[in-house]
Every structure is written in structure tokens, then in C-alpha cells.
């Protein structure tokens, strides 16, 4: 569904490429996770998809169509993106914030319809924020904000969903419920591309993992392929041990104490 083909991207006036030949494929029905250290190019991947960073080489396609050739509004109907940052200056009720997810579906004088209404209701329910819907955005905790943003992306009803660190600020219960939600969305026939720092959860939920390091794919494949001590130690420059989680059987990363000299 979402395809990055040898993508190279550079921020204006920067000598180094932020992405240098990154290829990945996020198919329908799967969770594709992008992991990597801070500054490895994960968020740049998302910005390149949104056209916020120009591509030097390569192509990004959605359902086979080049992202540069489709209108922004059309793109937003095909892929919903939850960016990492948001700065709402004027408070809005949660319900209205979620309703903004229908923006790419509204055109010209066409009013708010029954389809929009049911999309918003469904998104609020799926994200589990029914109890927040009458609250004002300036009364939300960091975790509540994240879930509202996910609900807004769900209201877009796009076949592909991209999330940039969606579980930052979430406690374990809410973090787990987000991963469970993404998992069920993927099973329901959506392509999920997830940028995350939560290696252990990613190892349990993702179908494939792409490990980025300095703008280059350092490893890619199933969780078992990527979650290897030697690979992670080299990329994260920190001593680690990878064990098998006794409860769930997934690979599990344990960072060791003290930098190895």
C-alpha cells in the first residue's frame, strides 16, 4: 500500500542526507514498524511522505500512485498521518478536534453529512475517548491528547495509517491499548506504518521491522531478524542483551548498565 523506493531526502541547507536510499513496503493487513536511534531519520520518513521534506532521489507511492503527483487532499484520503508534534493555540472541544479528521472529505460548499458523523463517532469509540468528547483540548493530559490525535486520524478513514511515536506520554495500559488497536486495524485491512521507540512492544506486535541508522536501513525483516543483540548494539551504541520474553515468547531487549569501554 505504502511504498518507499530508495528514498533520499535532505533538509534545506544541510550537508548530510537525512535519508539515504531507504526502501520499505507497508502492505495492507500488517503493522510495519520503523525503529532506530534519535536522529536516525524516522520522522523524516513521515515528513517526506507529507511533502514537507523534498526528495533528492527515489519515490514514495501510495497504492501505486506517486505521492508527488496526487493532490494533498486526495493524499489525505489515502493515508492518515499522526505527526509527532502538534501546537494547537486555541482550545477546541475534543469532538471538534476529531471532526477535523473529515477535512479531506469535505469539499467546497458540501456540508457535514451522515457519513462524516458516523466516521467521527466510530473513531471516538475505536480510540476509546468517548468519555473525553465534551472536554476542551486544553484540559487534556499528554496521553489523552495522543489518543485524540489517533482518533482524528481514524476519522480520516484512510486505507493507510502512519503514526510517529503515538505512545509517547502513554501509561502502560493506554500504550497497550493503542498497540492492540493498531493490531486490530491492520487485521481489518489497513496498512499500518508505525514509528516507535518501544522496541519490545514493536517486537511483539509488528509483522516487520525496519531499523534505521543515520538515514540508512541497518536491518529489515521479521522481529526475529532485526532484534539481534549484535545489530542493536552497533546501531544504538549501547550494550544490550536480547532474550526471549518468557511470558509471550517474543524477542525482548534489555539494555545493560554502564557504557562498555
Amino acid at each position, binding site marked *: 500500500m505504502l511504498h518507499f523506493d530508495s528514498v533520499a531526502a535532505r533538509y*534545506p541547507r544541510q550537508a548530510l542526507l537525512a535519508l539515504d536510499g531507504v526502501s520499505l513496503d507497508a502492505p495492507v493487513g500488517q503493522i510495519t514498524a520503523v525503529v532506530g536511534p534519535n536522529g536516525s531519520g524516522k520522522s523524516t520518513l513521515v*515528513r517526506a511522505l*507529507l*511533502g*514537507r521534506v523534498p526528495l533528492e532521489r527515489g519515490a514514495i507511492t501510495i497504492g501505486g500512485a506517486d505521492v508527488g503527483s496526487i*493532490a*494533498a*487532499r*486526495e*493524499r*489525505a*484520503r489515502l493515508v*492518515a*498521518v*499522526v*505527526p*509527532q*508534534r*502538534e*501546537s*494547537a*493555540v*486555541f*482550545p*477546541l*472541544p475534543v469532538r*471538534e*478536534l476529531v471532526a*477535523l*479528521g473529515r*477535512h*479531506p472529505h*469535505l469539499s467546497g460548499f458540501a456540508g457535514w453529512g451522515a457519513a462524516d458523523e458516523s466516521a467521527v463517532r466510530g473513531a471516538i469509540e475505536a480510540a476509546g475517548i468517548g468519555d473525553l468528547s465534551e472536554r476542551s483540548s*486544553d484540559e487534556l493530559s499528554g496521553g489523552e491528547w495522543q489518543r485524540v*490525535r489517533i482518533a482524528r*486520524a481514524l476519522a*480520516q478513514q484512510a486505507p493507510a495509517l502512519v503514526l510517529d511515536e503515538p505512545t509517547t506520554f502513554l501509561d502502560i495500559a493506554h500504550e497497550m491499548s493503542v498497540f492492540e488497536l493498531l493490531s486490530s486495524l491492520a487485521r481489518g485491512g489497513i496498512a499500518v506504518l508505525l514509528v516507535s521507540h518501544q522496541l519490545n512492544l514493536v517486537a511483539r506486535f509488528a509483522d516487520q521491522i525496519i531499523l534505521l541508522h543515520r538515514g540508512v536501513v541497518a536491518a529489515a525483516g521479521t522481529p526475529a531478524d532485526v532484534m539481534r543483540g549484535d545489530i542493536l548494539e552497533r546501531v544504538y551504541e549501547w550494550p544490550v542483551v536480547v532474550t526471549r520474553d518468557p511470558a509471550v515468547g517474543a524477542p525482548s531487549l534489555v539494555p545493560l548498565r554502564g557504557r562498555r569501554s
Partner: protein
Amino acid sequence: MSRRFVLVVALLALLLAVVAVSGVALGTIAIAPRDVIAALGGHGDPLTRSVVRDLRLPRVALAALVGAGLAMSGTALQATLRNPLAEPYLLGVSGGAAVGAVLAVVAGATAAGVVPLAAFAGAVVAVIVALMVARAAGGRADGRVLLMAGVVVGAFANAAIMVVLANAPPNALRNATWWMMGSVAGAEWPAVRALAVYVAIGAGVLWSNARDVDVLTLGDEPAAALGVRVERTTRLVYLVSALLAAATVSAAGLVGFVGLVVPHLARATGLRGHRALLAAAALLGATLVIAADVLARVTMPPAELPLGAVTALIGVPFFLTRLRSLR
């Protein structure tokens, strides 16, 4: 359209109508509301008819257009630049217009329409310079960079004005100062009609971009994620808001505070979405400036207070009551 929208707009329109009628009725010669309505319909005695239709009505209409234009400009700018302190005069519009007007006054321009034209030209030049500065500095149309570019251009314009006025003859100095304090006293129908066209066009463009503006308040990246062409829309709203303000400045000089305070009052009505907010702001802005103009002429007749000072004197207390909810 929500029920709240209909209710709020109906109430604001009623308020505007009441204030507008008092704007025509009150002044050095008070006219009873009944006679105002008769005169508007072409009846009553000729003197009253002339005062109403040739003096007071264009004045009220100009005040309404100036208020509506500045208020819509401020509403669009605060949302697009995501800054509750943004207002049209921060974009260098006022400074540029003042430079144009002051140069025309000091040069001794007396022909009708020269000073407004010079003010408009000055404002347009200032806005273009600000846009160019922002583009050179930021590459992208970043709200903060745009705002800073406007502030810097405005500061430069103010310095230029001081240099020019420091050596101007006393009469020119007085005229220039009066112009900078804003006034709708000399309103005439041609100027009213010209401003009406500008305000209508500006309102149309802002209204048709209002849904994109709703999304832009979330930030550039979330807006891009929702399909808004961020740079294009930001630049367009900036330009149209600035030109809208420039047109009001050329017609009535500097009328401060309207562009800053009215958007906050509009949001305080509880309306959401910028189509609704623009409508509410236009009505509130028109009402505020007409009311300020009435105060300006009835407080110590036959002298008039500067309009720009009165809008600020009314606006500041309103603003203070809203300050708590700004955060």
C-alpha cells in the same frame, strides 16, 4: 449551520443594527430614530435628510467596513499564524501605510484621494517587503518568520516616519499625526464604495479558505497530514489579510486594537470553525468601530476624539476580561 451559529449571528446583527441607527442619530445635531428611518426612506425635512444621507450614513458605513475588515483580517491571521497576539498592524501594514501617508502629507498633497492612495501604496510595499524578508530568512512560509518579518518592517517604517516628521513643518506634522490617529469623519460615498469592494473580495477569499484555516490552527505538520497545502494557504491568508487591512488604513488611517481584540471576542461567543468566526468577527468589528466613532463625536462636541484612541479605550477593558481565558 448549527443552531448556535444562527442565534449568535442574529444577535450580533441586531446589535449592529441598533448601534448603526444610533450612529446615524447621534452627533452635534441629534435626530430622533423615527426621523432617521424616515430620512433613509427619502422622507422628512431636507436638512435632516441631507445630514443623514450625505454625512452620517457614509460615516457609519465607512466605520462598519473598517471594523469588519480589520476584524476579519485579525481573525484569519491569529489562526493561520497560530498566535493570539497577531494582528494586521503587526505585518508592517500600518507602518508602511503611515510612511506613504506621511510622505504625501509632508509633500503638501492636497488633492482628494492622494493621501489614501499613498497610504495604500506604502502598505502594499511593506507587505511585499515583509514577505520577501520571510522568504529569504525561512525558505518556507513559517508563521513565526512571517510575523517577525512584519514586525521588523513595521519598526523600520516607524523609524522612517520619525525622521521625516522631525523636520516637517508644524502644519504637516499636525495633519500627519491626525491621520495616524484614525478617523472616519470625512467619509464620502465613493471611498465607502471602494472599501466595500475590497472588504467583499477579502471576505470572500478568507471565507473560502476558512476550513483550511481551521486545520492550520493545529500546526503545519498536522495540517499537511489533513491535506492542506500549508505554504500556499499561509501565504495567501497573510497576503489577503494584509491587503484588507491596507484598504481600511488608506480609507480611515490607523484604527488600533480592532484587529487584535475582536477576534478574541468572536471566539468568546463559543462559535467554532472559521467560517462562523469570520462572520461573527465582521459583525463585532463593525459594531465596535461605529460605537467608537459615536463616542468620538459625542464626548466633547464640537471637537472630536481620535477614533483610534477610542477603539483602544473601549477595546482594552474588553480584552482584559478575556485575558484570563487566553492562556
